[in-house]
């Protein structure tokens, strides 16, 4: 169905892309054949490091006319195969489109190219006393990638997710047309919200080449508190109590001792406390020190009443680094602790978090597989990892399938969603279809067809 790229195609692409930004066939490094988790592998036929919207437009126009598949890619840190060229074709890499174009202090927005890294964006706005709240663990992901998956992160409890901070997108449609969805305006009741449709569409509808993001003033105070518990059950049972207390929290994360120890081994740095089985990490922020103190005192008392052994203050840069650097490395640490793993990034209603985490322990026993987890207890988004630990291939595949079936079935029962923030990509398609049913999947297919009738953009993903 798709056209195999030939010399004529390469010659055309090279007519407007200089030699140093285009790689063909064996010139393409193997890194571009997989994402961070590496569940599926295939190299694109051509890799182009684009510099402008106009270049993307020319590439897409040609690809659409010639039925060549195109996949957009940023840092390639995704976990579900969304940035892998499963049908070959052209890979459009946005890493060099990494300019911050405007900080608009009157509209509280920042305009960026898609290849700007999350950590660069956060550092830049904080230097100017602004705050970009979405805070996924993978700070070397690009903003384009964050928009494509609607990444969430640790501050979603209070501030929401990437979609809540996207004001306007410049996109290139599959036929090469350049469009602007949304605007700098705060409000809009102006027809279907195409901008919000693009956020989370994983590069299947168009390619984002510029984004206007909403900023907030930087809160002057931020304090975290690490609460130790004697068991994971006790730790997670306290979460609904915290939420019910109406305290204004920025983050509620849970972590188990074995995950912390994996992170210590991975980073070569000690965590400030490893005396207990499980920990809850809370963050409070604002502009009033006294108010924050009142909040954390109230929540700490409540947690201690419900089984926390103590509450430890994480209040200086050094302390925040010692705790949050470990938290940020959990995924890589678990990955380094085993030969292969796959992940389940379900999100369940907040009041089901404790039940779901307990269920992961049950599934580990039923299937006979190690299932470490950590995640955003405060917003119901859990990161559950199934570890191969040296199992033979067939046994691993069978156990993985059984484990996933059980976990996703339970998530459906709880009215949860297949993915909280990592996306569907290639790996989770069957679970999405099961969750949403034919009617919703057909609506999505209709949308895909309206944008991309030739199905050249990131084929084989999401739907």
């Amino acid at each position, binding site marked *: 169905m798709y056209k195999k790229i030939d010399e004529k195609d390469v010659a055309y692409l090279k007519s407007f892309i200089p030699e140093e930004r285009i790689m063909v066939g064996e010139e393409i490094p193997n890194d571009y054949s997989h994402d961070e988790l590496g569940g599926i592998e295939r190299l694109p036929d051509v890799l182009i490091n684009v510099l402008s919207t106009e270049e993307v437009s020319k590439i897409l126009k040609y690809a659409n006319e010639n039925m060549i598949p195109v996949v957009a890619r940023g840092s390639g840190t995704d976990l579900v195969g969304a940035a892998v060229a499963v049908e070959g074709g052209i890979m459009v890499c946005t890493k060099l489109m990494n300019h911050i174009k405007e900080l608009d202090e009157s509209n509280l927005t920042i305009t960026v190219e898609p290849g700007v890294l999350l950590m660069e964006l956060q550092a830049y706005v904080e230097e100017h006393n602004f705050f970009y709240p979405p805070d996924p663990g993978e700070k070397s992901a690009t903003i384009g990638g964050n928009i494509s998956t609607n990444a969430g992160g640790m501050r979603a409890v209070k501030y929401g997710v990437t979609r809540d901070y996207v004001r306007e997108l410049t996109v290139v449609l599959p036929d090469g047309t350049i469009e602007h969805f949304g605007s700098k305006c705060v409000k809009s009741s102006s027809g279907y919200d195409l901008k919000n449709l693009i956020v989370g569409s994983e590069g299947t509808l168009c390619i984002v080449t510029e984004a206007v993001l909403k900023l907030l003033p930087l809160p002057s105070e931020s304090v975290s*508190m690490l609460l130790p518990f004697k068991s994971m059950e006790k730790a997670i049972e306290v979460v609904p109590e915290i939420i019910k207390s109406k305290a204004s929290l920025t983050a509620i994360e849970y972590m188990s001792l074995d995950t912390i120890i994996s992170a210590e081994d991975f980073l070569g740095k*000690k965590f400030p406390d490893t005396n207990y089985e499980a920990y809850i990490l809370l963050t409070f922020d604002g502009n009033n020190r006294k108010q924050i103190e009142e909040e954390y005192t109230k929540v700490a008392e409540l947690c201690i009443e419900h089984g926390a052994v103590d509450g430890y203050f994480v209040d*200086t840069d050094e302390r925040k680094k*010692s705790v949050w650097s470990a938290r940020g490395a959990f995924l890589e640490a678990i990955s380094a602790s085993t030969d292969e793993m796959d992940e389940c990034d379900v999100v369940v209603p907040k009041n089901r978090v404790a039940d779901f985490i307990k269920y992961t322990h049950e599934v580990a026993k039923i299937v006979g597989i190690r299932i470490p987890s950590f995640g955003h207890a405060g917003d119901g988004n859990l990161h559950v990892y199934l570890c191969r630990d040296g199992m033979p291939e067939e046994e691993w595949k069978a156990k993985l399938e059984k484990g996933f079936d059980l976990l996703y079935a339970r998530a459906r029962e709880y009215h949860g969603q297949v993915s909280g923030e990592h996306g569907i990509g290639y790996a989770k398609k069957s679970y999405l279809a099961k969750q949403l049913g034919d009617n919703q999947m057909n609506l999505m297919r209709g949308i895909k067809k309206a944008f991309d009738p030739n199905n050249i953009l990131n084929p084989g993903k999401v739907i």
Partner: protein
Amino acid sequence: MNIIVCIKQVPGTSNVNVDPVTGTLIRDGVASKMNPYDLNAVEMALKLVEENGGEVKVVSMGPPAALEVIREAIYMGASKGVLVSDRKFGGADVLATSYTLCSGIKALGDYDLILCGKQTTDGDTAQVGSELAEHLDIPHACYVKSIKQEGKKLEYVQNLDSKIVTARINMPCLMCVDSEINTPRLPSFLKKKENGDCQNKIQILTFNDVEDKDETHYGLKGSPTQVERIFEPDKRKDKEMITDGDLAKKTYDILKSKKFI
């Protein structure tokens, strides 16, 4: 083992401006914290006491606001503290500071070991520890990575520029611990709740309380150091790129010279 740890309150961030007229740090409106290197010393002390018994006390010199870091040390596990604080002690250089701190140490009673951080993040002199040991006439060692009790002696490992030294030292003694030797424990909410503002655990020592009443030994008058100029350092953005030759060997040599390997 009874251990006294010297701690200091420093600005909460490294982005502190210098007053171009007076040449002093602008501390107004800047949040404060315990010198991060002192936290390594507090952690080392608490670990030693967990292993060998005894108690950890802390001493600091500074304005009344420095009570906050003494409280923090108590919330980490110290049993009590002394704050040496008087306007007459202000403007002290390393000599006057170390001399004044001696009074605080004497007020805390007998000790086997005094621990200091490697240096402070504001003054950066790394001299107060050694000078304090000289005033007290006890042996001392710097850049200490680990300490083990061996009867009345301590065996310690010292991280010097080109070598690692293992040696023994008689108690009482003073040691300045190296940075990054441990991850300091976090202050406890329960200890904060139990001790409140730690009124009955903290003693404040003023000029009226010290034995030596010669004002020329304290503060600006007791400081022979004349500071000509204080200025903000250039921010270093230099980096080394290795692009040719045996990259693996060159990288290995650099890592080895920095003692990562």
